[in-house]
């Protein structure tokens, strides 16, 4: 019981420290003779394509609240806001891909997916399923 409470307290303290910006950098460290470690720098970019045809899909909104990302795919299915982000938490990040132009480029199911932190350093590839053709 004591050990359980102690662990809870440690995790709570860690959460509190991580929540204050002036201490967040404490989590990003590197050994004095090693290379950069926990922190990760990424430009979020990628492409959304049709799961069956692999054709790019235009007019989808890609959102990740976890990393404050919002963009809409262009005619090549590409999304990016060209902003460099410094990420200290290497857990998973939620992304949703939503059809916002109704049936203009076909109707697609909403995709709700998790992305590993390290995968954000490479172009993302999302596949979406078509519900109905363009009208």
């Amino acid at each position: 019981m004591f050990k359980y409470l102690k662990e809870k307290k440690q995790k709570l303290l860690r959460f509190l420290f991580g929540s204050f910006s002036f201490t967040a950098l404490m989590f990003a460290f590197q050994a004095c003779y090693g290379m950069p470690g926990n922190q990760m720098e990424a430009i979020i970019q990628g492409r959304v394509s049709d799961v069956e045809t692999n054709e790019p899909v235009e007019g989808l909104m890609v959102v990740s609240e976890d990393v404050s990302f919002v963009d809409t795919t262009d005619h090549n299915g590409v999304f990016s806001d060209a902003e460099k982000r410094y990420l200290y938490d290497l857990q998973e990040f939620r992304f949703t891909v939503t059809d916002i132009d109704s049936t203009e480029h076909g109707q697609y199911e909403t995709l709700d997916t998790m992305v590993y932190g390290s995968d954000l350093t490479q172009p993302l590839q999302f596949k979406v399923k078509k519900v109905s053709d363009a009208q």
Partner: protein
Amino acid sequence: MSAFKRFLFRVFRKNETEIHELNYLFWECTWRCNLSCRHCGSDCKSETRVADMPFADFLRAIEPLEHRYPRDTVIIAITGGEPLLREDLADCGRALRQHGFRWGIVTNGMLYDEQRHRELVAAGLSSVTVSLDGLEETHNWLRQHPQSFQRALRALRLIANEPRLNYDVVTCVHKRNLPELQRLKELLIANGIRYWRLFTIAPIGRAAGDSELMLSRSQVEEMLQFIADTRREGKINLTFSCEAYTGKYEEEVRDSYFFCRAGINIGSVLLNGDISACPNINRSFRQGNIYHDNLLDVWDNRFQIMRDRTWMRCGMCTSCKDYKQCLGGAMHLRPGEGEPILRCYNFR
């Protein structure tokens, strides 16, 4: 505010020490090296009778970490010797990614050409540190190789233009390159380098008896002032390595306070299988061996000497008022248990 921040930091450090998650693991994969640097902390040799550690041995040792820690929360720092001398480096890296580890290398850049760069990035390389120890003449003098500067610069240009990589340039500051730091900074900025880290040469390994490499106290302060000025200027992200507590410079030379995480978040598997913290720590501090012990058991149940550092309050630390903030400095500056620190950079 500063006193409150320091207090909060000490609470944070205590908490991190109690949790002691292993999330930075060195793998000393080889002792072979293609240079013979004057300041080498590990005293590596171009010819060594000690064979490289088979990757399968290392992978077997770290398997328990895969089950304990979430994917991507442990980074493997592959070091040596010179890790690029291992022809299977990309294969090792690829396998580490498949097992959920991030990985990076510390290199002199001699063998880092475009082909190797592509191969390593494709294998999931996520972080690189390249050494550049001054302008061309000085770097080549320290590294004792006429091509070493140009090769390192070639590597840096490739790495700095690769958006997937975390990287930095490290410079060992010594008497010869201290006056060059301003010009070196301009050279790095001109080559698109954005992350730069300085450290001083520790009186260990091959550098132990070389007074030409050691900065005087006033030169150390000159270096710290250069870092503080450069950080204010904002053209390149320069930090002082987390090798020492710097007293009044603590908030000016790094993003966070000095915190030696050896044995707290940093471990290592050394070439002979020994389990320790940073590879430059005196080998008498080894805590086990992967050929006899379970790495995670050792991490969980040993390493007390690095998590309770009250023994480090000896020598000049005994009466130091800043001990509670510094906790006796960096582990690699202790020649052994109970030994006083080799040097101190506390400026008041």
